[in-house]
């Protein structure tokens, strides 16, 4: 709001004046302005009184929809009946059964909870915001309950300690441990010097005296240290931090100026090593047959196992070196056409481009396996009738042939027929013999074979395959 605008300024001044009126009761305050002239800080009209609804409401109790007939006497009576205090006899029994701490807790609980509250408020909740389970909230159930926030929020003003603060912190931490000569029983260096030098400071001692005193003092300290170590080993009072203390200091002590405040962790608590009931059921995401994870997506999309995927018959049937002409020059890549089949009536064609043949082949392999479709085979050995398909200028004609005829077909069709499990087939490619188009046309022909059953149903005729009727249906 701009305070320079006249209306806003007047409103602001009036608002300030009225907020000051109740606190400053000085005689200088202008009496001409009544306190009810105080307006809110907006320009809408002041309401004279509380707004009433135009139509009177009727309470639910008046209409008999709810029962509010619980009078105080009734409440008292119910309380006295249902929530009686422990009698002295019962307390005697409890005193025998419970420990003194439990008894005290019981008494504290009895004193804290008013029995009338139990009558009025103690009910199983039926409101929509009730807990989805019945619980007295004694225990934290990690599956249902949220993690309790035991730590206060982090100090927003905390910063990294400087050198002095760090030293001070280290000294404070080290005070927790009894280190050094706490009992003042150890001898000092002066006591090992000759008596005439004991009163004088160390700097004035001659060199031989100093060395002799230091040698004796070092020997004494070594013996004392060995003694104290023996104490520790024998289970005596620890002197100094243990390795665990030092590790805790390194890993867990805060390096911020927050008095070593352990803030709330936002990480979910880790699962235990073996969750009961679930242990042994985990499956790692990577397959031992597929360490590089090439088939992860394919596994998810097709539902096949890596073993099934890798058992497919694969063949590279066409490789083209293609290039994309850009303003920066030609970008070469390789287009690879692959087929995949399971030798049992499934065939897929995959086309992919890559920087080199290997990259293209890998992508084409995945696509071929993903594109696999069921191919209808007559007697699991040949196709149904004569099929013709055309892609661009390429026409592929497939002819069904009798058993034992073999695969007398061009090489790309041969690979396809072998991958799908067709053993008797003849074919012609009367026009263009482009490799990619040949594959696509043959795939289209194989996937669009006529179905004699459907033709018969369309014409309303009965159809019998005589090969399945003669010789007891043993022709195969």
């Amino acid at each position: 709001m701009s305070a320079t605008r006249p209306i806003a300024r007047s409103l602001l001044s009036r608002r300030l004046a009225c907020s000051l009126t109740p606190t400053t009761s000085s005689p200088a305050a202008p009496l001409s302005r009544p306190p009810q002239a105080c307006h809110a800080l907006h320009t809408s009209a002041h309401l004279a009184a509380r707004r009433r609804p135009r139509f009177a409401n009727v309470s639910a109790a008046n209409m008999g929809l709810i029962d509010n007939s619980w009078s105080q006497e009734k409440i008292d009576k119910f309380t006295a009946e249902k929530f009686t205090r422990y009698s002295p006899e019962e307390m005697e029994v409890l005193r025998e059964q419970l420990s003194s701490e439990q008894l005290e807790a019981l008494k504290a609980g009895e004193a804290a909870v008013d029995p009338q509250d139990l009558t009025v408020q103690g009910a199983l909740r039926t409101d929509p915001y009730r807990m989805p389970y019945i619980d007295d909230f004694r225990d934290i159930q990690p599956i249902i309950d949220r993690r309790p926030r035991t730590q206060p929020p982090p100090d927003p003003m905390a910063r990294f300690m400087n050198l002095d603060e760090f030293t001070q912190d280290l000294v404070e931490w080290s005070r927790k441990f009894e280190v050094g000569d706490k009992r003042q029983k150890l001898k000092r260096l002066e006591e090992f010097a000759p008596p005439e030098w004991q009163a004088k400071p160390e700097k004035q001692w001659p060199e031989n005296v100093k060395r002799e005193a230091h040698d004796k003092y070092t020997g004494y300290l070594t013996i004392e240290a060995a003694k104290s170590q023996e104490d520790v080993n024998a289970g005596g009072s620890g002197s100094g931090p243990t390795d665990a203390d030092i590790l805790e200091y390194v890993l867990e002590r805060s390096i911020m100026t927050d008095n070593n405040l352990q803030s709330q962790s936002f990480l979910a608590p880790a699962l235990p090593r073996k969750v009961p009931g679930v242990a042994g059921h985990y499956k790692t995401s990577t397959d031992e047959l597929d360490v590089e994870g090439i088939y992860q997506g394919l596994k998810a999309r097709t539902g096949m196992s890596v073993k099934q995927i890798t058992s497919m018959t694969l063949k590279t049937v066409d490789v083209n070196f293609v290039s994309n002409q850009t303003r920066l020059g030609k970008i070469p890549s390789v287009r690879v056409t692959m087929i995949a089949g399971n030798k049992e009536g499934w065939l897929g064609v995959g086309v992919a481009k890559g920087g080199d043949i290997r990259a293209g082949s890998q992508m084409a392999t995945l696509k071929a396996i993903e594109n696999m479709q069921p191919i209808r085979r007559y007697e699991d050995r040949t196709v149904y009738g004569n099929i013709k398909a055309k892609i661009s200028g390429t026409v592929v004609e497939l002819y069904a042939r009798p058993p034992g005829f073999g695969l007398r077909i061009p090489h790309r069709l041969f690979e396809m027929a072998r991958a799908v499990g067709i053993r008797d087939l003849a074919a012609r490619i009367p026009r263009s013999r482009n490799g990619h188009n040949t594959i696509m046309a043959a795939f289209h022909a194989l996937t669009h074979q006529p179905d004699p059953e459907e033709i018969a149903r369309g014409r309303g005729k009965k159809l019998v395959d005589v090969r399945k009727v003669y010789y007891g249906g043993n022709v195969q």
Partner: protein
Amino acid sequence: MGIHSITNACSHLSNASRARLGLTSLPNNKYNLLLSLALHRAGLIASVTRAGPHPPPPEALLSFEAEPVTTANVATRRLWLGLKYWNNEPVMRKLTAVSKSSRLVTASYRDLSRVARGFQSGQMKGMNLGETMFLATDRGVLEVREALEKKVGGLVLCRVN
């Protein structure tokens, strides 16, 4: 009775089924009527109804009481054929006329028996899966299998796929 009406009917029915028509008409003549009835016997069309220049109501195709043909109305009569579709595909997909006015093609019983089994006979290619053939014989217009039953050959009208 010219063969040209059969040739025209084949082209028209091919186009009609490709256009997914439900009811189409042919000129009313004996040859067309015989072919239509043969197609109906083979299950390739749903209905054959003789009516005027306007199609009969589709719901009354089978129970339609045809107006008697008189010399007054014979010129306006047409044959209304109901086409069949199964699985969103036409049952009668392609009709290829074989004989034409300038070249009549006949087939003996011996030829037909080979062709019906899928083998070539002379210039006539064997029938493919789902294919059938219609012939004009001295026993009427017959499908190839009917002709084989009756052991007759005749004039090859069309192949239907």
